[in-house]
């Protein structure tokens, strides 16, 4: 009811003043006071006290200066190796807000209230996907307010938080807007709206952030990527509550200042915004039952299970992901970090997770690996090095370069190589003395090498032997013939690669070079991923921690027999206890 009134009012107002804001919806939704629906005028907060500012300076120079710099220009010692680059406070441009597009965020040094103090929430919860950590539990509430008092008054230089002449506050009333239930109907409407509102142009057809992936720049000219809707834990505005639809509603309503993400408040109704938010929220990865993934409170990313179970499959393993066996196979989240151990270190890894499933039969084991990569990268022409070469001429980002040569500025200047994925398993993993595991990058030494299977986007599937992080790979004789690439496809920002390799046996395979996969055993497994558009090649890549491949054995018969035996035993024991008690009582009464 209210909605329709405001909508009508909006149409009348828009028509009367001729202030038609162009939108693909055809009309703008503006309330009678000229404010977008769901917004109200707010007051500027009073200036923080001088004591707060002074105390905040102390916090700033202990904790923040290292990235944000002495003048708050986002140019501290850590800045040049970071992407996204630390925020330059000077312009007063802040991303996550409850205020209308272009306005300063909410900040009141006396009001640390969720939903009413944007900067306080940013410091409290951090900005996931960037180097900004949550400061809750490290800095007290008071200290967080103090440091913000310092930043907003001393380091924001081009604007003034208290200047009534130039600043306004038009505040999204998120607390008063009841979220619309995420019904199928609402999500369906949302899925149509994201096309109509052209969200997909940047965020991609499946919302993996792959549209327009390399042409977007922020206000400072640094390359910027559209959010991947399937990884809500990486949303900057997720506030450590990634599956909360309100976050998406807020970002969509207010836009992200300093980036190409506009506010859609003027050309969508609140109702439409909820539909879109519900749809976007529904895309975030969930478990097979549709529940949100459990988030690890230590890392604010999905919890990791380090065992990759492989189910048994009778006969030829299917190459179609739609096949029932693949649909039933448990899917594991494999977190990927930059390879920052050996030169050239990869400080910015664009692939931060892969999803792995596995099936096996009596001859082979198949890994189905899926990962989001905004760009399909295939190197043009022949690569300047052999596939076995690891020690290649790739430079790592220098520590101090200034803005122009920083990692953020370099993002779309890299030579493009092949996207690739690697699976490393230990050879002779059973014979390793307990503390030794050849689970360093590419093997530890000659005695305990590793078996590496590497797929590249040019369609090649190769097998190598690795004997140490600083040694080039060694070719394997004939092994590649026994492997098979069942699938490799890039679609809407996601790779689907299915690799089949032999489980190994002493008759046909080389025990010294080949990992034997044994049923019911934990086989140390590491994954590598290369993003060609990130200039990834050789050791510049993303790596996982040490996972285990575990081929689920068929259930042994004893499992059904012993519990029955035990239960019968317990019944006998019960009989004995009762008889004893009864006898004793008899003895007493007698």
């Amino acid at each position, binding site marked *: 009811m209210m909605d329709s009134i405001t909508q009508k009012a909006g149409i009348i107002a828009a028509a009367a003043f001729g202030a038609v804001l162009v939108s693909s919806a055809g009309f703008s939704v503006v309330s009678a006071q000229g404010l977008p629906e769901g917004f109200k005028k707010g007051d500027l907060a009073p200036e923080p006290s001088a004591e707060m500012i002074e105390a905040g300076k102390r916090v700033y120079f202990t904790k923040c200066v290292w990235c944000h710099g002495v003048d708050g220009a986002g140019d501290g010692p850590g800045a040049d190796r970071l992407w996204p680059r630390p925020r330059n406070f000077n312009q007063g441009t802040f991303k996550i807000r409850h205020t209308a597009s272009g306005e300063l965020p909410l900040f009141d040094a006396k009001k640390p209230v969720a939903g009413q103090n944007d900067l306080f929430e940013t410091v409290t919860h951090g900005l996931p996907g960037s180097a900004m*950590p949550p400061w809750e539990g490290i800095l007290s509430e008071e200290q967080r307010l103090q440091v913000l008092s310092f930043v907003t008054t001393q380091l924001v230089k081009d604007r003034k938080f208290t200047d009534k002449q130039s600043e306004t506050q038009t505040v999204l009333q998120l607390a008063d807007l009841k979220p619309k239930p995420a019904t199928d109907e609402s999500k369906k409407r949302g899925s149509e709206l994201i096309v109509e509102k052209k969200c997909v142009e940047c965020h991609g057809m499946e919302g993996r952030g792959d549209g327009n992936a390399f042409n977007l720049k922020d206000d400072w000219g640094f390359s910027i990527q559209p959010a991947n809707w399937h990884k809500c834990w990486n949303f900057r505005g997720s506030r450590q509550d990634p599956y909360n639809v309100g976050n998406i509603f807020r970002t969509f309503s207010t836009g992200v200042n300093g980036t190409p993400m506009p506010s859609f408040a003027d050309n969508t109704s609140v109702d439409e915004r909820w539909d879109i938010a519900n749809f976007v929220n529904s895309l975030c990865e969930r478990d097979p039952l549709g529940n949100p993934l459990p988030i690890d409170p230590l890392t604010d990313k999905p919890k990791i299970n380090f065992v990759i179970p492989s189910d048994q499959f009778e006969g030829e393993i299917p190459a179609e992901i739609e096949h029932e066996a693949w649909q039933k196979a448990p899917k594991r989240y494999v977190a990927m970090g930059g390879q920052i151990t050996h030169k050239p270190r990869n400080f910015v890894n664009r692939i931060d997770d892969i999803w792995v499933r596995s099936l096996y039969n009596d001859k082979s084991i198949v890994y189905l690996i899926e990962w989001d990569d905004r760009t399909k990268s295939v190197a043009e022409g022949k690569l300047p090095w052999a596939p076995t070469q690891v020690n290649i001429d790739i430079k790592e980002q220098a520590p101090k370069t200034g803005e122009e040569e920083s990692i953020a500025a370099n993002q779309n200047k890299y030579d493009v190589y092949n996207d690739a994925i690697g699976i490393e398993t230990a050879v002779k993993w059973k014979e390793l003395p307990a*503390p030794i595991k050849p689970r*360093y990058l590419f093997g530890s030494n000659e005695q305990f090498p590793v078996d590496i299977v590497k797929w590249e986007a040019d369609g090649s599937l190769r097998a190598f032997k690795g004997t140490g992080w600083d040694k080039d790979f060694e070719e394997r004789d004939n092994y590649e013939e026994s492997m098979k690439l069942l699938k490799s496809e890039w679609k809407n920002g996601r790779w689907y690669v299915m690799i089949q390799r032999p489980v190994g046996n002493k008759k046909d395979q080389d025990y010294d070079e080949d990992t034997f996969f044994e049923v019911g055993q934990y086989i140390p497994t590491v994954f590598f991923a290369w993003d060609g558009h990130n200039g990834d090649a050789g050791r510049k890549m993303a790596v996982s921690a040490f996972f285990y491949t575990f081929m689920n054995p068929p259930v042994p018969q004893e499992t059904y027999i012993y519990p029955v035996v035990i239960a019968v035993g317990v019944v006998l024991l*019960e009989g004995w206890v009762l008889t004893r008690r009864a006898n004793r009582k008899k003895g007493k009464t007698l």
Partner: protein
Amino acid sequence: MKALMSLGALIGVAGILLLGGMVFDIVPSTTVRLVEGYMPIQMIVEVACYVVGFAGLSYILNAMGMAIPRFWQGIGFWVFFLMYLKFRVYPPIPFSVRAMYGTVALVTVFMWISANEEDWKKFKQPIMNVLDAQTGANRLLRYAYLVLIPILVGGFSFNAMMPKSEEPIELRTVHPAPPASTKVHGKTYVLQTSQNPYRVNPEGKYDQEFSNANIVEQSMGRLMKPNANPWDDKNQGYLKYVREGGEIFFQNCHFCHGDNLNGRGLHAFAFNPIPANFTDPGTIAQLQETFIFWRVSKGGIGLPNEGFPWASVMPPWEQHLTVDEIWKVILFEYWHTGYYPRTWD
């Protein structure tokens, strides 16, 4: 006495309500934060408050003629403790540790209820009643137990025997014994006698007292002392090097060890175990600077076998940094966490 006990009872009720709120996720368990480093003390104090509260509650109920039997008191307290560990403590502690604490708590409860013959009898009474099955309700209960226990035990053993793919447990030594000396960039450093060349006063002399006086304050936030800002251009000696060390830290180390040196850096989520937390009193606060020097220079690969080298991907930093840079980073780490390195004397 009565007033005191009523107060206790009030605490007890409030405490139970709070815990209940946490169990059902109404009150977030982060309402009162357990601060790293002070966690054990905080927990002991809290549990002590609960015990006082329960004592008061039990007294009041007794006075009102609604005494809770010893049997239920014992079980109730044990259940309370398990719930406390599971729902109150944040960040959450793993099940294996909770099981250990739970066992200790069970033993404690047994000691409490069997402290004297009278109490023990009271505790045993309900069990005996069921065994003897004098009343109808007890007889029903006895039959229920007779049937349920074998089913449960059978079920559990079936579950335990089903092939599982749980992560194998691998224990590792956090601080393995260091070697007597280490060779970095061609020079041998004897761990017993080496010193951080940058722990110096403005005159350039090694000065532990001077540096200790200028580290951050060991309180919430661990902020720098008001007149000891490493970013002050006039600094000479210790604080100047702290700043240089900080620059190196934020160009190389924070990716894993985090902006607050708590092991939760940008890439930390991908590692297992996650990188070392220097703000934890169990890490650098327990070690000598020379140990850290060896550990940083040689990285995970340089660990002896008992340190499970594969469980640390820390690079041998000698490949990336000079000796001077390594010493400065170490200086910064102690400054930023507010800990004193251990010394040999």
